[in-house]
């Protein structure tokens, strides 16, 4: 299985880009040259100079250090939100598929309603009243993507439940938990993995978008989106200040989307020749 992934060129390229990003996110605090919050009034909005390889921002803080630590909240939100969306969505989907009747109708209607609004609008709504911050972002974005996992799981549950071998397993006395883990989940692993990669990409996009608006990660802690938003006002003084975080975010997004594409190619051969 793993071999199939590494033989795919798109996957390989995105993997080579994303692996260092993840490693830097993990070991960030060990390799930063400066304290990312340390203000230096003598070096404000400078280009690269000694000690500050990528220059400084409007408070004289080291851009490289802020870039390195800025990955962490983004990754935290991306993975945290995806885990919530996955666990919540699979649970809700299985319940809906098993319950049938009014409960199923109620769940699926609620999901339709959530899905019919732009995620950023719902996120702005919640952030607007309940405040920003990494914890809220994880909860909101996780909640917003529950419907996608729920839909996949729901339809798969309906399909698998009717199959003869599942029916016979049930009549032999297998527990529902066993049916869910042994029959339903393995059957929908591919669409779920594809959905996971899509959700991670969407969560990064939402987090950095909200932080860009100043409504995501709370300053002075850095995040790429927030750095771009802040640098917007100093584009004439130090253009490199806005270029670095934009470049990091752009390349990371591109790599994540490529990885999603490669997952689809590898796991869903039906789509390959489209």
């Amino acid at each position: 299985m793993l071999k199939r992934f590494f033989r795919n060129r798109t996957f390989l390229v995105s993997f080579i880009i994303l692996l260092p990003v993840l490693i830097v996110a993990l070991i960030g605090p060990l390799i930063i040259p400066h304290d990312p919050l340390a203000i230096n009034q003598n070096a404000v909005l400078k280009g690269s100079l000694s000690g500050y390889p990528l220059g400084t921002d409007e408070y004289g803080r080291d851009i490289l250090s802020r870039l390195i630590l800025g990955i962490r909240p983004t990754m935290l939100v991306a993975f945290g939100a995806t885990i919530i969306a996955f666990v919540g969505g699979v649970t809700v989907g299985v319940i809906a598929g098993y319950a049938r009747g009014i409960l199923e109708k109620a769940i699926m209607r609620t999901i339709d309603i959530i899905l019919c609004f732009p995620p950023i609008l719902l996120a702005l709504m919640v952030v607007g009243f309940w405040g920003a911050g990494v914890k809220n972002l994880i909860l909101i974005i996780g909640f917003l993507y529950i419907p996608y996992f729920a839909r996949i799981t729901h339809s798969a549950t309906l399909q698998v439940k009717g199959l003869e071998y599942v029916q016979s397993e049930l009549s032999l006395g297998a527990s529902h938990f066993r049916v869910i883990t042994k029959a339903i989940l393995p059957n929908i692993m591919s669409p779920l993995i594809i959905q996971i990669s899509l959700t991670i990409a969407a969560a990064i996009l939402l987090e950095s978008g909200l932080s860009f608006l100043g409504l995501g990660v709370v300053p002075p802690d850095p995040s790429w989106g927030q750095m771009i938003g802040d640098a917007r006002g100093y584009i004439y003084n130090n253009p490199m200040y806005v270029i670095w975080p934009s470049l990091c975010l752009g390349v990371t997004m591109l790599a994540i989307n490529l990885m999603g594409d490669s997952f689809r190619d590898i796991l869903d051969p039906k789509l390959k020749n489209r």
Partner: protein
Amino acid sequence: MLLRFVTKNIGVAVVQIIIVATIVFSLLRFMPGDPAVLVLGTERGADPEAVAAMRTTLGLDQPLLTQYLGWMTDIVRLDFGQSLFNNIDVTTYIAERLPKTLELAIAAIIIGAIIGISLGIIAAVKRGSIVDMIVSTIAAAGMSFPVYVTGTAFILLISLQLNLLPASGYTEFSEDPIGHFQRLLLPAITIALPLAASIARMTRSSMLEVLGKDFVQTLRAKGLAEKLVIYKHVLRNAIISVITVIGLELANLIGGTVLIEFLFNWPGLSTLLVEAINNRNYPIIQGSIIVIAAFYILINRSVEIIYGLMDPRTR
């Protein structure tokens, strides 16, 4: 049959707007902390009289059910209360900002459709050529980059390096018509690019699908000029897909407008919303969210209706 289809869609829109209004209502009522104290800040929030007065202003001093019914009737009358800081009606703010957002969005849709359809046609007609590959690659990249990253790149390149267009801001059309469009162009193109990318993809694949059909063979066999085959017959069949894309991309379009207005200092509805969130100006937050959501819902339903009119099978 048609009437029933249209009324059903209007009914769905009304229900959706009621749901949004209810969510907005409950978010303020069930938020962690007292909204009145949060508006006043720590110092004045300690004064019980000021807090009580603010609760009255926000309409929080009445029983929940009365609040809810009052909130719903106010929405029907398009009355969102007054800004907390200067007693100007929220409706006045929205009426001033909404046209600017709509202008930006419509400009983006037009630009996106023009670029997308033309690139899609070229890619489909010259399938497998270098042009096709370039279009597909750019389309894929255009959909991955966050809009504000492309926007920043445009500002750096077109405004700072080449000095072709102003970097940001807004001028009234009546004051300076040329300056108005110059400032509209960059943000509109930035929002249009991801839209153009999806439209190009969709136009390409649906044109290829139609080109493979029997009737195209017949048209060619009877000696119709290739240009006529493509523009008169194939493109007409492919155009419905463009409407689908606009419907599908609407959520992204709204997201793009929110972010791009902020990047380019465009004084639209989204910048109003972001400012209001930063100042905890709850009446404006409520009003602008409901108006943006209502517009989104209405456009979505209209796309559905247009789609149903053009292709009766989808009703």
